[in-house]
């Protein structure tokens, strides 16, 4: 039949199904194909903490949202335009995120009595009137998949595992995407299992062909490539960007990379990825616990490696004492916290920004640690690189904060040129003459790095208070005060060595929206919407949270009002209010979810209109 073709500027699709339905793979495949077609995009995987939650249940629903378009895309989309629901529970959980009039592509087989009961539906929503305000496309994906594979004599399990590719095929047809990319992926992934390759390709094609021939789908959409900045691109997740950022930093510092870590959601993928890069002399150590993980990095750092530990909030809680030791012995160390919902075990697979104060202050004694935070998945690369630069130059542990949303989310990323990355090489002390372990560089106050194996530099370091220069144990009152100030001063001086704060938009005005971390995309979208409408609002996003950029105060004083949106109860707000004595407004959300751009738009609007009154 004749199909109508329409052009779209942007669209958001959410794939949702059981945690065993392969929705993350489906989403990732759609994403990679879309990235290769030159669209700008942003993704948001949203999956349960349970590995194989009981089938068909509400808490077992796994979702993957992708927002893509021909214009700039900064968030994974507030709401979705299309919801692919593999079963009743997936529909129930995700319906509230679907725009009015949006499309539902439902796998009818997932709406049998058992599924309906598990999803707590009294009647079948596909058959009653409850979905009348949406466009509902009903397809028995399970049956069509089975038919496509009929002559292959595959087990039910395999057939069941393939049906996600039927949905993928349909979506590829609907949005005019090529299936070649996914075919290549399957061929590579299941190299040793030809029947799995065959099955997936067949089903993918069946999905595409079904959409092409069936009368259910009448419209096919085109989303033109975006006019992104020139360059060579790849799609990248935050955790992946973190991993290769670490390798890049070690290469540029001419050091071996050591990762001491303990598996924890959502940080483990950094370990998985780094453990594949052994040809870079990367040593990864899965320790017996979080404490062993970080203390092993202190040993490695003492030995002259670029040492890193990766974890999430609960892990940081356990590492706290060791971070204090690293502060005291003044050794370089990168501590990556992929934040998740807390406190305690909290929401392992959901995002939050509530570990900022923990990073800045969470240690016994006066133990200052520099803190940097990534703002987008791709930015994790540069942020962790910056963490390494600071750690090496100032001989200090450095916190690098990302979060679950950045870690698992992805975006197209301009591949940096390896040669153009800054040289962050350091030096080991070699000269045995007049060596003292705590002699400091006059400008940075950093002590020298003297590693075992160097003749004549034998020395001892430890966690007890010490005398400057000699490092001899010293408990005298004045000495302690001097050392506390010295360690604080060293970290403060980093402010001389980081870029000045520069808002996006105007340098002064009615409102500055100040953010940090993963809220970047949502704030940027909301602020630019208002700016297009002529509102006086600018956006400043901080990478450096301790110390702050030197001119931050001046920047803040140039605005009538300051709004700080955070996925916590106002932690940056506290720091800003305390340091700059400005009445910053807090806007907080703690649902384990990122801000939507719309939420921020409304907030900004209400503040600006209040201002006009």
């Amino acid at each position, binding site marked *: 039949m004749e199909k109508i073709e329409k052009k779209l500027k942007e669209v958001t699709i959410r794939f949702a199904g059981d945690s065993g339905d392969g929705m993350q793979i489906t989403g990732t495949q759609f994403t990679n194909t879309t990235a290769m077609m030159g669209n700008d995009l942003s993704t948001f995987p949203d999956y349960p903490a349970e590995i194989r939650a009981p089938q068909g249940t509400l808490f077992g629903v796994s979702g993957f949202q992708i927002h893509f378009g021909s214009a700039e895309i900064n968030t994974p989309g507030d709401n979705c335009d299309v919801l692919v629901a593999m079963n009743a529970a997936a529909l129930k959980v995700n319906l509230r995120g679907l725009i009015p009039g949006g499309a539902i592509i439902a796998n009818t087989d997932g709406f049998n009595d058992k599924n309906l009961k598990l999803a707590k539906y009294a009647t079948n929503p596909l058959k009653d009137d409850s979905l009348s305000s949406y466009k509902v496309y009903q397809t028995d994906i399970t049956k069509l998949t089975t038919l496509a594979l009929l002559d292959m004599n595959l087990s039910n399990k395999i057939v069941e595992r393939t049906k996600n590719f039927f949905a993928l095929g349909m979506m590829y047809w609907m949005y005019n995407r090529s299936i070649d990319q996914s075919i290549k992926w399957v061929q590579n992934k299941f190299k040793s299992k030809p029947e799995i390759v065959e099955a997936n390709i067949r089903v993918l094609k069946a999905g595409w062909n079904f959409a092409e021939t069936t009368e259910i789908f009448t419209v096919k959409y085109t989303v033109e490539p975006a006019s992104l900045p020139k360059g060579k691109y790849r799609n990248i997740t935050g955790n992946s960007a973190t991993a290769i950022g670490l390798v890049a930093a070690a290469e540029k510092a001419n050091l071996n990379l050591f990762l001491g870590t303990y598996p924890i959601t959502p940080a483990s993928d950094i370990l998985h990825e780094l453990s594949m890069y052994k040809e870079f002399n990367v040593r990864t150590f899965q320790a017996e616990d979080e404490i062993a993980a970080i203390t092993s990095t202190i040993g490695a750092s003492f*030995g002259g490696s670029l040492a890193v530990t990766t974890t999430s909030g609960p892990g940081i809680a356990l590492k706290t004492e060791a971070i204090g030791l690293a502060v005291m012995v003044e050794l370089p160390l990168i501590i990556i916290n992929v934040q998740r919902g807390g406190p305690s075990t909290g929401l392992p697979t959901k995002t939050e920004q509530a570990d900022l104060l923990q990073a800045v202050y969470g240690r016994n004694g006066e133990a200052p640690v520099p803190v940097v935070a990534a703002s987008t998945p791709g930015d994790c690369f540069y942020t962790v690189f910056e963490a390494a630069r600071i750690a090496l130059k100032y001989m200090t542990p450095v916190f690098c904060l990302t979060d679950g949303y950045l870690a698992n989310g992805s975006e197209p990323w301009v591949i940096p040129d390896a040669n153009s990355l800054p040289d962050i090489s350091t030096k080991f002390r070699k000269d045995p003459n007049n060596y003292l372990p705590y002699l400091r560089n006059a400008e940075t106050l950093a002590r020298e790095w003297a590693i075992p194996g*160097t003749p004549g530099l034998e020395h001892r370091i430890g966690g007890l208070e010490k005398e400057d220069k000699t490092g001899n144990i010293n408990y005298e009152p004045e000495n302690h005060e001097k050392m506390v100030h010295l360690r604080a001063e060293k970290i403060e001086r980093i402010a001389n060595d980081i870029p000045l704060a520069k808002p996006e938009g105007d340098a002064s005005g009615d409102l500055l929206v100040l953010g940090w971390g993963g809220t970047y995309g949502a704030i940027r979208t909301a602020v630019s919407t208002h700016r297009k409408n002529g509102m006086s609002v600018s956006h400043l996003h901080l990478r450096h949270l301790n110390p702050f950029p030197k001119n931050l105060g001046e920047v803040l004083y140039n605005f009538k009002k300051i709004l700080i949106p955070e996925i916590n109860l106002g932690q940056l707000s506290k720091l800003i209010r305390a340091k700059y004595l400005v009445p910053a407004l807090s806007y907080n959300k703690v649902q384990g979810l990122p801000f939507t751009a719309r939420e921020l738009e409304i907030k900004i609007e209400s503040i600006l209109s209040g201002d006009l009154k």
Partner: protein
Amino acid sequence: MSTLVDEVVTKSETASVKYTAKDFQTDQDVRWCPGCGDYSILAQVQRIIPDFNFPREKTVFVSGIGCSSRFPYYMETYGVHGIHGRATTIASGLKMTRPELQVWVVTGDGDGLSIGGNHLIHLIRRNLDINILLFNNQIYGLTKGQYSPTSEFGKVTKSTPQGSIDNPFNPVTLALGSSGTFVARTMDRDPKHMQTVIKRGVQHRGTSFIEIYQNCNVFNDGAFFHFTEKESKDENSVILEHGKPLIFGKAKDKGVRLDGFTPKVVSLTDGKYSANDLLIHNENDSTLAFILGNMSYNPELPRPFGIFLDTAEHCYEDEMQKQIDLAIQKKGKGNLEKLLNGGDTWFIN
């Protein structure tokens, strides 16, 4: 190894000068209580370490917290005085990244078996080539006299006025149970024995775990006098020697014989048994090591000192290096440009 590390470190495995014990003494005042057993251990280590003829700059002492953990400050080598219980992990990270170093861990019964118990067993099972000296004084010294995980049941201390209700750890069987490849016990009062055992521990490839009975004359004086003093030691202890029968007693008149799997004390003078009937020690037999280890808290039996077990197993750091070498062999040396450009890429012009 990266060039930056290569630029500064010694390649040589042998020292360029002949060291004496003095070369390993620092300018720091030793701050243990007068009469503490720690002095003897420090002296023995400083005495034997020149014998290895190993570059001083490639030697590292790592400790945690406690009286014993002051040790690194007194050794003119590289050293880290870490945090409570974590010497083993700091040392592990160092050894993994710098396998050519000689790494020592100095710990105590509190540091190593209580707060650091978890790390200790994991280091032992991974079998990194690290020498662990565990000073066992069966008490908390630095915090002034609470019971420790090796204090005997019923021990009255500041924190257990009615007696401890904990069952103590036996460090030797704990190490054996952690798949230890070198497990030994010695004592502060027998310098010669201590020297021999520590030397063997250093020569062993893999984790060597050496429990050292150490008298804390302030908070637990005489805890080991039974085994260490002239009057009593011969009757209460037996020295393990590879290939030799277990004979003890002042007059060498007693022996240990295996009755099935059960060690029993027999007389060598009543005509029933001779040395040929006794248990012959075999350092390479892990089953035997457990039997000997379990003799420790049996009042009927003499307490064994010496090397319980010395077996060869692969070391963690060697395997780590092998995987790196294999990856380089397969994929070539890592190329950053290639890594950055990995996966599917596309151009926007």
